């Protein structure tokens, strides 16, 4: 694999940052703080609530800091509500879905953007339209069809519908990355005598890697927190994913503490995933195209 030289983080506006007045800088810092608080505050509230019991959550006057770091909710969530099982199910279903979706979408995206062929425009239009139907309405026909195919009732019954539902967006988003790859690269490779196969694997994929990673993460996040299909297609509670597990906290009596603890558990893997790959795809993007 060619190693790209890590470029200095280039940003559109930073080039002129030396010329920014102090007023400008103060405004930037102010807005940054506002943004920071805006993003984090609800999340902080979720974490805070996960340490409270049923009476404390609705207590007035409001406590901004937990009375004590009480992990009872978390313990309860794993022992009484089987979140551990649901976590494993979520991981398996999501990872498998992402891998399959990304493979299929990358191939399709490459074909649509780099190889103009008859019907590609129609296919793209179809992709755009299939996004517009709310999932809820294809749910019933989809469900009936899947049961006839014997696909309902196991964990894997989620994977195929998920893949199908994620393909349109994946392809659309991936296309924006494939389209950016300059034609010169393609032509250079062809002149060197590349076959289509080699073109795809040795040239296109590496250049679009950042896009592929970005879109995989997007797919991961979408599938990780999908609820409607998950709750309809899986019957046994040992097959539940985390989001369906969330709904088990809403009985006649919402277990807010458990709900909040589970939300934190749901949020963490996605956040870790993003942080780890973030440098990869944001910074690489700049360097990759230069070469």
């Amino acid at each position: 694999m060619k190693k790209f030289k890590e470029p200095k983080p280039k940003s559109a506006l930073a080039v002129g940052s030396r010329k920014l007045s102090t007023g400008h800088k103060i405004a930037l810092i102010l807005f940054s703080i506002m943004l920071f608080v805006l993003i984090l505050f609800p999340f902080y509230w979720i974490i805070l609530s996960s340490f409270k019991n049923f009476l404390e959550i609705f207590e007035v006057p409001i406590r901004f800091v937990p009375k004590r770091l009480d992990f009872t909710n978390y313990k309860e969530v794993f022992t009484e509500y089987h979140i551990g099982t649901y976590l494993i199910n979520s991981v398996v279903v999501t990872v498998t879905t992402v891998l399959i979706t990304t493979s299929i979408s990358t191939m399709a995206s490459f074909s649509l953007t780099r190889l103009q062929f008859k019907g590609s425009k129609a296919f793209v239009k179809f992709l755009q339209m299939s996004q517009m139907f709310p999932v809820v309405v294809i749910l019933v026909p989809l469900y009936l069809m899947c049961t006839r195919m014997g696909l309902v009732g196991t964990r894997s019954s989620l994977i195929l519908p998920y893949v199908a539902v994620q393909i349109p967006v994946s392809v659309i988003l991936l296309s924006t990355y494939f389209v950016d790859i300059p034609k010169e690269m393609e032509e250079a490779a062809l002149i060197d005598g590349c076959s289509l196969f080699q073109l795809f694997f040795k040239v296109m994929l590496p250049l679009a890697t950042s896009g592929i990673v970005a879109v995989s993460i997007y797919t991961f996040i979408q599938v990780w927190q999908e609820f409607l299909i998950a709750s309809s297609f899986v019957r046994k509670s040992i097959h539940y994913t985390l989001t369906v597990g969330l709904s088990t906290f809403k009985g006649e009596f919402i277990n807010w503490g458990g709900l909040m603890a589970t939300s934190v558990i749901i949020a963490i893997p996605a956040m870790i995933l993003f942080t780890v790959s973030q440098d990869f795809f944001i910074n690489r993007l700049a360097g990759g195209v230069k070469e």
Partner: protein
Amino acid sequence: MKKALLISMMVLVVAGLVFAQGASEAGGKKEIRVLLWDSTYNSTIVKNGIEEKFEAAYPGYDVIFDKIAYDDLDKTILFSHASGDDYDVIQVITTSLNPLKAGGALAPMDDLIKKTNLDFSTWSPAAVKAGIIDGATYGLPFDPDCRILAYNVKILRELGLEPPKTTDDMLKIAKAAYEKLGVYAMAGQISKNVFCMYDLGGFQLCFDSKVYDLVDGKYTALLDKPEALAFVKWATEMYKYMPKDTNINDTLARSMFAQGKVAMLWWTPSQIKSVIPQFEHREDLEFSVMPVGPTGVRGSAMGGYHWGIGSGSKNKEAAMKFLEFALQPENQALIARGLPADTRAFDYPPYNVPDYNMFREQLKSSSYPAPLIDLFTKVAETWNRRFQESLLGTITPEEACRIGQQEVQAILDTYKY
């Protein structure tokens, strides 16, 4: 390097699919699949070892419980029926009995019942009747409940008022509590579609009024009656002293009640077992039967659950065996979250304490808020909109009743007799 990546990806995918397929169940015993509301499962089935008890009494059977969130119960029943994968035993929300039967999801049970030793003479007549549709039994009651009134004695003491016996008393307490102590009269989620039937609407029975009823063989909306107007006026007045948020979920309402911020609340017996233990100041709470309305009637709205057998079940006889077991008085007492349907069950723990005598009595005079036809939900949803509009003051109670009457009757006119 790339090849390794590719191969490991494929291995992951295959492994994922295989794992996701899940292991198949071991054969041998006769399987009985039971669908329950998870709250029932957690609070009674598990705690009382029902699975073990049944399998000890009937060794040839293996009972498997599936638990679902309340909101998904109907959906799961219908979907599993549509896919030919019906459950054997189903916990059915009583108000859903009719719709589910109309959708063909429930099996008629009369022939199966004849083979058992079940005797319904000591059961709540209203609950038994609710399970009989078009002359055949489609559901057996196992957990009816009714509404009772809960109130905070500490607040009443501060106001120098007696516990409420009539709906007028309730208004007096409401006004005093709100104006003198800044405490809410009651609290609930007015945007919930059964709010007009069970929550605040549950008091409509105290006014000798129902949203609709069977009149001379025809389902007729009764919102144009003076009793209905009296109720809506009462509710609108009461709402002045309730929180302004329209989305106060039940948990929040009970939390506020537990913190002494709400004076009175409609309550169900099931919440005595499940919710009260979480209160810090248990001694401030007291319960009573529902109040008496202006015409001297005391009404209590019934709800609860029935057992049904899936129409596509391949194990109906086994299912009935489970039901026969579950409906024995001592087991009903263990499994019911609200009240057992059989009055004999009150002789068994945990119902054999004086606390429950009041509910035993109240159950006898309870009734469902309106006939449980399959249009029940649609009517509730439609009327609740006008009910809310009256409470919020966007229309007057008179207008609400007038428009509501038209809309509800229009829905009832589509009923297929």
